[in-house]
């Protein structure tokens, strides 16, 4: 290869095991930083479109249907089961100390603050995030994204913005559905199956959940939705060639989304708790 070719590509392989180890770790760190930078630019490009020109109604409605309407049954079903599972798991301990009637407070508080939003987001990441990455990955592999660009359309505006809007605007509804069905499931198992007193259960349930809890769960879900949309679309756009590449994009979209949802959850929970105790130093709330 000529000098100029050599100047274009530098591919010297390290000889010693230590040098190879440094090379591998160095590459992994550089790749990680590059991915974070790339994802930031990707998100920035998407946000610029979001605030300058919205996509046409047709593309938005299709994504709303995919993300919202089609996810509703599965989110409702999992919400119901998780409410019942919480009742099953907590009953023995509460019964042992004679606080059966307080079960509702624990179930509802856990659902509204944590499990409802995280569960809805996890279901969305699995059902919608994986599908988004697979669809966009296939479009990348079959040159459909190149075709969009070649025809003067911006792929981020056309493909990513509608998916992002669908995720952030509909995940609060899905979270409310997961919360509601979980509460119903918990009530059903506690009152109908375990025979806890109906009035006492409802009284304590009402005491256990505050308006701030409900708000904090829904507020967090918006961040979960945006995480799912950005990670999944990014993985789809950067899909490797072939069927294996598409499969890998779908899998990594779910795994990365799930890990990030939990990390964002931790961060936002700390922030929301700080806000709560700043507003209500004595632990009271507006409900």
């Amino acid at each position, binding site marked *: 290869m000529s000098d100029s070719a050599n100047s274009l*590509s530098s591919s010297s392989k390290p000889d010693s095991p230590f040098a190879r180890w440094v090379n591998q770790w160095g590459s992994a760190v550089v790749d990680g930083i590059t991915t974070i930078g790339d994802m930031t630019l990707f998100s920035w490009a998407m946000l610029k479109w979001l605030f300058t020109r919205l996509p046409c109604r047709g593309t938005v409605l299709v994504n709303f249907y995919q993300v919202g309407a089609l996810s509703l049954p599965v989110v409702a079903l999992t919400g119901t089961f998780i409410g019942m599972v919480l009742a099953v798991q907590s009953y023995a301990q509460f019964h042992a100390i004679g606080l059966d009637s307080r079960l509702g407070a624990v179930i509802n508080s856990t659902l509204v603050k944590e499990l409802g939003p995280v569960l809805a987001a996890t279901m969305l990441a699995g059902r919608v995030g994986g599908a988004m990455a697979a669809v966009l990955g296939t479009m990348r592999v079959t040159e459909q994204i190149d075709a969009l*660009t070649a025809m*003067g359309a911006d792929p981020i505006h056309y493909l990513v913005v509608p998916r992002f809007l669908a995720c952030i605007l509909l995940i609060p509804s899905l979270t409310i559905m997961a919360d509601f069905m979980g509460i119903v499931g918990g009530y059903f198992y506690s009152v109908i199956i375990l025979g806890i007193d109906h009035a006492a259960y409802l009284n304590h349930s009402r005491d256990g959940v505050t308006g701030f809890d409900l708000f904090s769960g829904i507020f967090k879900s918006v961040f979960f939705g945006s995480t799912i949309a950005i990670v999944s679309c990014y993985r789809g756009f950067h899909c490797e060639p072939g069927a294996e590449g598409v499969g890998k994009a779908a899998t990594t979209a779910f795994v990365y989304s799930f890990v990030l949802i939990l990390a964002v959850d931790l961060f936002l929970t700390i922030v929301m708790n700080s806000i709560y105790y700043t507003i209500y130093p004595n632990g009271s709330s507006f409900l």
Partner: protein
Amino acid sequence: MNAESRQSDAGVIPDQEDSSLKVGETDQASDGQPLIEARHVSVVFDDQVVLQDIELQITRGQTLAIIGESGCGKTVFMKTLVGLVRPTRGEIFFDGEGIHQMGYAELTRTRRRFGFVFQNAALFDSMSVYENVAFPLRQSEVVTETAVEESVMQHLAEVGLPKNVAYKRPAELSGGMRKRVGLARALILKPEVVVYDEPTTGLDPIMSDVINELILDTRRRYPVTSVVVTHDMHTARKVADRVLMFYPRSRLGDNESQVVFDGPPSSLEHAEDRRVRQFVRGEAGERLMELAHGLSG
């Protein structure tokens, strides 16, 4: 360039009833300025040099075929011409304007002067054939639905597709039909340049010839400049008035040019370069030795 000037450009293109134009004739017919020019273009992916120091001028009205074995950088070069791939080094000019330095809006406007026929048509799965062909029109200008329908049906008819195909999904079409829909979609904005990526790959000989005839027919109907990337020698000989052959950078020695042939298709058989003759005749040559070494090694 506006629509009027495009029409005036059409005036300097010879009547292409005779599809067997020669290089000299095309050059004479053009205004002497290259429509597309690549200056010292190099493209590197990670540490792999795909294209190195490519120099090329394409005149208005010319049909250029770029041939070469798989992995030699034909498709990457073609994508570089329309700004889908940014050159690592070098410059690309279209109608005197540097594509390599254009901003987003300018590049988008420029891309609409190109029609792009992708290797596997790259039709949008989620849309019907009608919506696929209408897509560039709806993206580029405000048009009434009646005008869109008229234009879509006209372009589908021009590529020999019946009306009922318009409402099918791309998955329901054969390979040849998909390519023809891709061609209709590329032509709907009446582009100045049509770029074909492996237009006959994966098609039977009859359908390949149908596509070749459509490329020639497009030249007769519209005053277009065409760039055809192919390794089908029948296509190169039939549709091109100039052929360029790329050779994989990794197989070249120091200071060797990646362009190993540049001339009319009639000179391909008698090219001085042995690699060109081998490619044209489809002879494996020293590759068989390499394969044998690989197996024994």
